[in-house]
């Protein structure tokens, strides 16, 4: 594995399976008496969260602490409205404090990339969600959860059909999931109104459809994405009612799924909007497990990035793109 985890595309199939297998082992260990492993003793992990996210931050904090790493939490509201200290100055401070890894969540797409490649810090950078770009550890815990239920907890997801529904345009979870799931051999279909699918979706390694009902009978897993009601004001869809009628997972649709199919959601949920309360609480829903799996998957990521010798970087992230002679 490389020094950083910035995008799900950083992981090839072997890397991805290594993370999932390591997470499985760690899950088994921490299920038993062992609550704390000494492996990252003496290492410092900084949680640099520029967006409110108690759930993800606590997940990373628990993961680091179970490996005996020291954890420093830095919460900042960084926005164009209240410009506090610049990302650069914060990074230089963290470097001076000896951060071995920085877990960063930031509203600007590409902020983890800047942190990793600017030379401000020397440690590993883990992307905990950047703008509408990526959220690789979420995709990993989603894949882990799917593997548990659909593949006996081992191997990849070859041939499994995963349907992801919702605001793909603004979803970093969707982007990371499409990349990782296709690396693991799954067949992914995105479902959304045309306004919520990004330009160039035909080039993505997945299918897409505007019709949710047509996808239900074949899906092994359905992942619902959070849809913000405010998007209605920017004319992405006319009303919440129309959105949930056409794209919401209600009980009728849930019953149209195959017996074994699971329902997932990265959280937080808009109950009644993209997912009915009864569906969220049904026994098909693995939403709570996703959270548990998150800690184990993040432990695996921190272990693989920090426990061993530092590796080199992947090539070619900064090449000068030229236009050749006509």
């Amino acid at each position: 594995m490389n020094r950083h985890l910035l995008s799900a595309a950083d992981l090839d199939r072997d890397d991805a399976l290594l993370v999932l297998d390591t997470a499985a082992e760690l899950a088994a260990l921490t299920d038993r008496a062992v609550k704390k492993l000494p492996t990252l003793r003496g290492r410092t992990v900084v949680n640099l969260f520029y967006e409110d996210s108690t759930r993800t931050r606590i997940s990373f904090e628990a993961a680091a602490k179970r490996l005996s790493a020291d954890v420093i939490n830095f919460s900042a509201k960084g926005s164009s409205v209240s410009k506090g200290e610049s990302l650069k100055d914060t990074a230089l401070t963290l470097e001076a404090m000896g951060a071995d890894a920085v877990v960063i969540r930031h509203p600007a797409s590409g902020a983890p990339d800047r942190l990793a490649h600017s030379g401000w810090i020397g440690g590993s950078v883990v992307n905990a969600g950047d703008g509408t770009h990526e959220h690789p550890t979420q995709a990993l815990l989603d894949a882990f959860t799917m593997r548990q239920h659909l593949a006996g907890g081992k191997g990849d997801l070859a041939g499994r059909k995963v349907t992801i529904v919702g605001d793909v345009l603004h979803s970093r979870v969707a982007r990371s999931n499409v990349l990782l799931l296709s690396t693991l051999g799954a067949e992914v279909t995105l479902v959304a109104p045309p306004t919520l699918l990004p330009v160039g979706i035909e080039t993505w390694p997945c299918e897409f459809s505007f019709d949710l009902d047509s996808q239900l009978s074949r899906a092994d897993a359905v992942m619902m994405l959070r849809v913000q009601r405010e998007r209605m004001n920017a004319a992405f869809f006319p009303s919440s009612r129309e959105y949930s009628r056409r794209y919401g997972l209600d009980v009728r649709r849930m019953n149209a799924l195959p017996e074994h199919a699971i329902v997932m959601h990265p959280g937080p949920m808009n109950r009644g909007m993209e997912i009915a309360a009864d569906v969220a609480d049904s026994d098909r829903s693995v939403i709570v497990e996703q959270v548990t799996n998150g800690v184990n998957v993040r432990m695996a990521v921190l272990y693989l990035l920090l426990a061993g010798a530092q590796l080199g970087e992947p090539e070619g992230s900064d090449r000068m793109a030229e236009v050749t002679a006509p």
Partner: protein
Amino acid sequence: MVGVSAARTPDETRTVLDSDDIARALTRVAHEIVERTKGADDIVLLGIPTRGVYLANRIAERIHQIEGREIPVGSLDITLYRDDLRRAPARALLPTSIPASGIDDKVVVLVDDVLYSGRTIRAALDAMSDIGRPRMVQLAVLVDRGHRELPIRPDYVGKNIPTAKTEKVLVHLEEFDGDDAVRLSGQSQEES
């Protein structure tokens, strides 16, 4: 002690234990365990992956033949407790599986193929202390090759094979490598 008598040339690989030697050594170890634990009543065998686990299984089977009782067998991966993690890229974890009856107040016999510096066993002791509190911990190894760096000693040894640090001890087990043999390779020099 060492049976083979042919003079060695540098870089040659020679077999120091063949499959019969291994079988006899394991049988003897099994008998020793039964004897020293006065019947192997409350013992648990924990093999250190990968080959230690196969050896633990074989020993358990032999004890079963001797005493007519099933002995709990498990595996204990020590990767997360190594003291040399930073010297190589992060390693994949191997399975840890503790028998349902646990290890508290039991006599745990750790089983490994080769005992060398003792650091692996030190890590195994740390790993176990996070899992429970055995009454006693003992160590069974197929080969003791010397060069201890910590105050660790085996309770049961299949074979003592003095080696030079430049030599490699290669253990093959049927279940994993397709054949049973212990071989030595590399130059022999004055032993320390």
